[in-house]
């Protein structure tokens, strides 16, 4: 007989045919054919994963069409190590995102697209515009080390690198060069599976403690014959949310005087200042940087800002007007054009897929771009019926001539726009970069005291990245018996990256320019073997087991050279250095060897028990030879998991509304090691002083007695379907504990060191995830599907060791601390002093209680700061929810996804410094009519009380001048409380409307064609002024959530996607 798939009417290999009541059994070959000895009256049971099991009499055997299991219960999912399993057998939560959901409404960093689509996953993308990195955390935070909360990324069963290499150093500010996963080409992805819990991930070992994002690449397996698939996508990007600046007052310093440009450095009237506290715009005439110059009454081709204009030339005053759209005009419409063409082919023996993708992106920041070419090849072949081979290779060449600098400082354009660019400066006039006749040597600008021309910043002071990466694997599989196979795999992830930082002459912080080149080579190799057995013991029991081993080798080599000053402008080579080159090098290696295995028993296909175990040996926990005698070493560690699931609906009779019910539970441990070289204490060299070489000891204190860290987790869940699967509900509760965390804990530097590596701490996180799928309407031609992903997570610090009561996770304007007994992600900072009536001995005690809670102001009208840091909130959301709806009517498909975040706080540096500079719209408060304090509406009276000499309180009535007020609000960048915001938001994350051309069309050359209009991040509702709450700042390669540090505007994108198959 021959078994045919009811789906695509193609032969179905691997289907099981069994004679009912007997042990006789066979499977179909690659062409779907089988032969089995049976009597004509015997019944044959034909089953295959993903299809409804069918019984037919042997006499009827011929072409047997197996219907697809529409309940989706037989759905096969890829689990750890690439092992395929039926979803219903899983004892843990796993959620899948299909490849087509990634390529239609797309992002250049594919990781961003997990947001809202997978319950329990938090994604914070960097708004650097062009494929920046994304911080993913699954089920909240387990580690107080922010870098340790990222999931493991796995391609075709083999881990890849997700390294973030910091973009700062040598006086360069932070640049987001993307994380490893951001370079993966979405067009080559068939599906992404998110393994959330430890049980799901236990077989992956150490790095999977925070979950796994498993990427399965596309193949030609479904193809018969040769086919061509084409996908074209064009999207345009524009800023989703722009800061709001005041457009009433121009450059100045609140003196109430006029403005006059002389040298942009203070020689004129307020022309040295960079703040927006100047005269109101009334169309009056002032000499400005862009005003024309005349010499002896004759026009000359120089303007105010040309400091090399002929002596005696005069600046002709021009109208004092606001540049109403300065940032909007500066930013551009980003364009992303992605084209993918894939050649696929397959027959009974093998398949292949050759794919080429070209991504060409320009960002919303001028002169930022990303060009990424990905060529992938995937092929499989059945060499014999028992022996098959597969290989996948993807070569990624990514080039960016400029990625924007982020963070606070002169290299960041948002530093300029949000804080120090008065509305009177017409930005478009700065497109001329150089002073006339001083090209490449002296920039042309509105201010020569502090700032760089923003166009020079983006066009000349570039941060280039040239990145090559090869990801490849080879998989050999041999069927030793019908129930036993051996798989051998080897995989490489190799990348070579060059970064070029160019700084032009006359840049404020690099008067002679600078050139810095960084080279990073990362390699990770994994080689493993895996025996897999799957045997039916009798009609009630079946058994499966795996046994495998893996060797992981990681190496990375970092070298850099810096020409701190250049000889000749415009020549960006290390050889053009005016001063001795500064170099750096760091080579790192790590190895982990592992053995692991699993065993599973299923009873009557309704009760499933799985156990796993793994032992790792890590080089990072191995003492170097010369330190062996001084420490204790534990470089081998074992951990295990157990998972149980039961199909209740197959075991007991349930009310008919319940079409399916499954309960699952699991318990797992995952061991973890640490970064290489944690044991060694070294000295590093710094710039020599003349002929004297200089070394300093690293300020991190090593520890020779590190133990592996162990996280344990359990989860319970239920998968329920109602009304013939029209409603599906999946609920999971989980709890995890991480113990013996290997942490680099901060030390008081009085001890001589600023941090120490220890085993410390216990963090517990727990939460729930709910996935709800509903099909409210389903008719022959119309369907409405809806889904909701909801998650809620809490992480708590149970214990820190060695008398530690708190751990400073990060300190940047506010401090993110883990304090024993408190939540992870709590933020502390200086607050406003407030009246209290609980402690008579503490300051601002009000026995009457009348003023309790009111802000205290000093006699001069300024808010009083607390002396100690206080808790200002927590950056973690209370809950996250994604709500998606899909409507299909014949060939038309409309889908939308809303992403909702409730709770969590954000510190805004834009608010702090934008107020100081008089730039943002809040600074209009207190200057209704200029700066004359005698006029109404000028100056601000803070809302609170003043403590009098007798200790009593009275309402504050002191008016503070406007410029003073707005910096007093933060106590001169000291008080954080006034600039903390609720980061809740609702985002229209995705909207698509697509049309698949009807069947008739398919009969021609073109087999399938779809055209879609797509949009991402289209609308945002939030309460944070000026910035998208979904931002983060970067410090040395670590993403800091909850802190906004001059972030670039996030972008909305909209475009069109066209795909067809030949």
């Amino acid at each position, binding site marked *: 007989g021959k078994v045919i798939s009811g789906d695509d009417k193609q032969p179905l290999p691997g289907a099981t045919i069994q004679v009912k009541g007997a042990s006789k059994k066979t499977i179909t070959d690659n062409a779907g054919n089988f032969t089995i000895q049976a009597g004509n009256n015997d019944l044959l049971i034909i089953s295959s994963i993903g299809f409804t099991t069918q019984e037919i009499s042997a006499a009827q055997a011929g072409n047997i069409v197996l219907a697809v299991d529409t309940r989706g219960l037989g759905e096969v999912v890829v689990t750890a190590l690439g092992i395929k399993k039926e979803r219903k057998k899983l004892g843990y939560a796993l959620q899948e995102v299909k490849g087509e959901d990634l390529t239609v409404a797309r992002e250049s960093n594919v990781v961003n697209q997990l947001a809202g689509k997978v319950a329990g996953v938090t994604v914070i993308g960097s708004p650097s515009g062009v494929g920046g990195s994304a911080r993913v955390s699954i089920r909240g935070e387990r580690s107080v080390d922010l870098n340790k909360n990222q999931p493991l990324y796995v391609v075709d069963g083999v881990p890849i690198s997700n390294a973030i290499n910091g973009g700062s150093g040598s006086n360069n500010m932070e640049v987001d060069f993307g994380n490893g996963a951001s370079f993966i080409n979405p067009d080559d992805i068939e599906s992404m599976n998110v393994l959330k819990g430890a049980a799901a991930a236990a077989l992956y070992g150490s790095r999977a403690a925070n979950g796994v994002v498993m990427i399965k690449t596309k193949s030609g397996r479904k193809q018969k014959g040769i086919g061509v698939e084409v996908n074209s996508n064009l999207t345009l990007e524009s800023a989703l949310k722009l800061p709001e600046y005041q457009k009433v007052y121009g450059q100045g310093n609140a003196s109430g005087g006029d403005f006059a440009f002389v040298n942009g450095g203070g020689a004129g009237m307020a022309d040295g200042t960079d703040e927006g506290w100047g005269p109101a715009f009334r169309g009056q005439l002032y000499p400005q940087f862009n005003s024309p110059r005349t010499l002896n009454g004759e026009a000359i081709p120089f303007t105010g800002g040309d400091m090399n204009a002929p002596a005696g030339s005069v600046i002709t005053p021009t109208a004092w007007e606001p540049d109403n759209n300065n940032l909007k005009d500066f930013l551009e419409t980003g364009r992303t054009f992605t084209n993918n063409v894939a050649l696929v082919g397959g027959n009974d023996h093998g398949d292949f897929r050759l794919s080429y993708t070209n991504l060409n992106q320009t960002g919303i920041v001028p002169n930022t771009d990303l060009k990424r070419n990905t060529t992938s090849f995937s092929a499989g072949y059945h060499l014999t019926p028992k022996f098959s081979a597969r290989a996948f290779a993807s070569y990624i060449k990514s080039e960016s001539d400029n990625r924007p600098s982020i963070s606070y400082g002169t290299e960041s354009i948002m530093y300029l726009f949000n804080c120090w660019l008065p509305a009177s400066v017409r930005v478009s006039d700065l497109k001329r970069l150089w002073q006339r006749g001083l090209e490449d040597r002296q920039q042309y600008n509105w201010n020569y005291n502090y700032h760089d021309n923003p166009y020079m910043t983006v066009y000349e002071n570039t941060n280039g990245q040239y990145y090559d990466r090869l990801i490849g694997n080879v998989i050999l599989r041999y069927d030793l018996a019908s129930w036993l196979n051996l798989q051998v795999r080897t995989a490489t992830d190799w990348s070579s990256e060059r970064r070029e930082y160019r700084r032009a002459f006359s840049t404020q912080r690099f008067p002679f320019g600078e050139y810095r080149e960084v080279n990073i080579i990362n390699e990770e190799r994994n080689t493993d073997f895996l025996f897999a057995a799957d045997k039916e013991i009798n009609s009630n029991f079946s058994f499966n087991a795996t046994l495998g081993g893996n060797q992981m080798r990681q190496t990375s080599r970092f070298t850099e050279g810096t020409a701190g000053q250049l000889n000749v402008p415009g020549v960006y080579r290390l050889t053009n250095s005016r001063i001795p080159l500064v170099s750096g090098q760091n080579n790192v290696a790590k*190895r982990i*060897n592992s053995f692991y295995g699993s065993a599973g028993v299923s009873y009557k296909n309704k009760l499933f028990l799985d156990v796993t175990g793994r032992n790792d040996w890590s080089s990072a926990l191995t*003492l170097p*030879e010369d330190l062996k005698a001084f420490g204790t070493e534990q470089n081998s560690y074992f951990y295990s998991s157990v998972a149980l699931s039961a199909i209740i609906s197959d075991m007991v009779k349930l009310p008919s509304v319940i079409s399916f019910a499954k309960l699952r539970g699991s318990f797992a441990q995952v061991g973890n090691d640490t970064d290489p070289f944690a044991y060694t204490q*070294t000295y590093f060299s710094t710039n020599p002083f003349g002929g004297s070489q200089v*070394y300093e000891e690293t300020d991190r204190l090593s520890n020779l007695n590190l133990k592996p860290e162990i996280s344990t987790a359990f989860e319970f869940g239920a998968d329920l379907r109602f009304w013939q699967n029209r409603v599906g509900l999946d609920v999971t509760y989980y709890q995890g504990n991480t113990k013996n965390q290997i942490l680099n804990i901060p030390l008081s530097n009085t*001890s001589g060191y600023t941090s120490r590596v220890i085993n410390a701490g216990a963090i517990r996180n727990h939460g729930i995830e709910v996935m709800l799928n509903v099909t409210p309407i389903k008719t022959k031609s119309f369907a409405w599907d809806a889904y909701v992903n909801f998650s809620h997570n809490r992480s708590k610090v149970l214990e820190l060791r060695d008398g530690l009561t708190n751990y400073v996770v990060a300190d940047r304007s506010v401090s993110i601390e883990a304090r024993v007994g408190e939540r992870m992600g709590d933020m502390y900072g200086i607050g406003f002093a407030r009246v209290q009536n609980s402690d008579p001995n503490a300051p601002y005690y009000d026995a009457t209680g009348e003023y309790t809670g009111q802000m205290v102001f000093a006699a001069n009208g300024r808010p009083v700061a607390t002396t100690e840091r206080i808790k200002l909130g927590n950056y973690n959301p209370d809950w996250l929810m994604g709500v998606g709806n899909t409507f299909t009517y014949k060939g038309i498909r409309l889908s939308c996804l809303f992403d909702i975040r409730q709770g969590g706080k954000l510190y805004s540096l834009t608010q702090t410094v934008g107020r100081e500079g008089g730039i943002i719209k809040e600074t209009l408060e207190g200057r209704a009519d200029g700066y004359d304090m005698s006029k109404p509406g000028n100056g601000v009276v803070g809302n609170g009380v003043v403590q009098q000499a007798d200790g009593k309180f009275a309402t504050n009535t002191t008016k503070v*001048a406007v410029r003073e007020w707005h910096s007093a609000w933060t106590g001169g960048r000291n008080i954080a409380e006034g600039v903390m915001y609720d980061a809740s938001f609702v985002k229209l994350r995705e909207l698509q409307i697509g049309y698949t051309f009807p069947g008739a069309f398919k009969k021609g050359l073109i087999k399938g064609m779809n055209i879609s209009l797509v949009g991402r991040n289209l609308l945002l509702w939030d309460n944070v002024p000026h910035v998208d709450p979904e931002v983060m700042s970067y410090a040395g390669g670590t993403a800091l959530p909850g802190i906004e540090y001059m972030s670039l505007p996030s972008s909305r994108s909209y475009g069109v996607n066209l795909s067809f198959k030949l």
Partner: protein
Amino acid sequence: CARDFSEVNTNENNPTTVTPDLLLSGVIRNMMNAQVNTAWGIGNIVVQHHAKIQFVNEDRYLWGEQNSVWDEVYSNYRNLQNLFNAVGTDSTNPYLGVSLILKSWMFAVATDTYGDIPYSEAGKAKLEGKYQPKYDTQEEIYAGVLADLKRANSFLAISGSNLNGDILYGGGANALLKWRKLANSLRLRYLMRLSKRKDVGAEMTEILSNPATYPIFERNEDNAELEYFSSAPNQWPLYGARVGSFDEFRVSKTLSDRLTALGDPRLKVFGRPSQRSVTAGTPKIEGIPNGLSDVNALAYNGGVQGVSRVGYTFACLVCNDAGQAAPDPAAPRALLMTYAELQFILAEARERNMITTGDAATYYNNGITANFEYWKSIVPPQYGIDVTMPANYLSQSGVAYTGGQADKLGKIALQKWVAYYFNGLEAWFDWRRTRMPAIVPGPSNLNNDRVPVRFIYPQKEQSLNGASRKAAVDRQGVDDMNTLMWIAK
């Protein structure tokens, strides 16, 4: 399963041991750069050598945390501690004596800045597992500092001369004597500072009466100062500043008034004539009062053109006036202690009869003369700044060593204050002891007309060494900038 793992996990990027000279050079450079940066950031401001016209928080005593002294001292002490570990107790090893001098100076600066601080248990995390060092009292720290300086002098008297990495005095045998002079001169500085609390006359006398055993600075060439290079990266630390940032700091009216009154040409080193006065053809140095509000500071005297910039000698690459060449980044030096300062210490000690050697007026005049000569030797001739002491300078009534003892001490304090220009926080420490010359808080100060007398402890200590800090605060008084520390009481 773990074969070769030891080798894989061996860090070959950097050495695990280094020779003392490689550490010594770094400690000296870092600490001397810190002297310049601390002086610039706050030292020159609080004693009113300079005033701010923009970002005026420091000048208005809105200080918040000031952690640079703390961080520099303790992070460099780590390297110094490694030096001690390498040298052991071998008193003939010159690195021991030199390191003791540096340690003494660093901890004296730190305790003078913050009060009680970790000292006896500091820097001991690696060898003794002390992660949360206790704060010692200032009295104990001063005792340790003085004892170490004395030991250092005696060690160096008998030590070998194989000293490298000495970027302060150039190493070798010649340097050893200069280090001893520094040790004894610093002892005199700290004894004087201690004189409010203790009778230090005997110890001072012991030093002065045995010049062979206790050599002290004898001329400017003995000054403990760091010379910079003309090319990056070891240039004058402010050389890379943005012009706007540099120009936020201007000549204080206090400095310009006091020096103008004396016809003191050193003012031409410290400041430049205001640009407006230059344009008008009547160049004059016009300082700005300290502690003005944001608006008033920028508007003072008709705006920034009417306020003198800080001296050309100390300027950044692009901080030259119109028509001027870029300044020489190798000209200005980082100061630890000068011969002039020592002379003023001796003048005061003699005046107050703490010592009987020498003559107060001579010491005093030596100090003034030495400081004039110092600046004369520092300022490159092409700058065209004549720092020659005017003929009648020492004899004019504002300078002449005449009057009652209070007058004389006031004159010493004034000249010492001038000589302390750009020397870390030393002028402030000394003012805290003598309250001379007067510091009048600016009109818009935010500290109720009080001049701050200390820095608050770094806020991170609340988290990282909370119990030790709390014990110190309980002992010393509330952790704010107005709490007077033991030595200044």
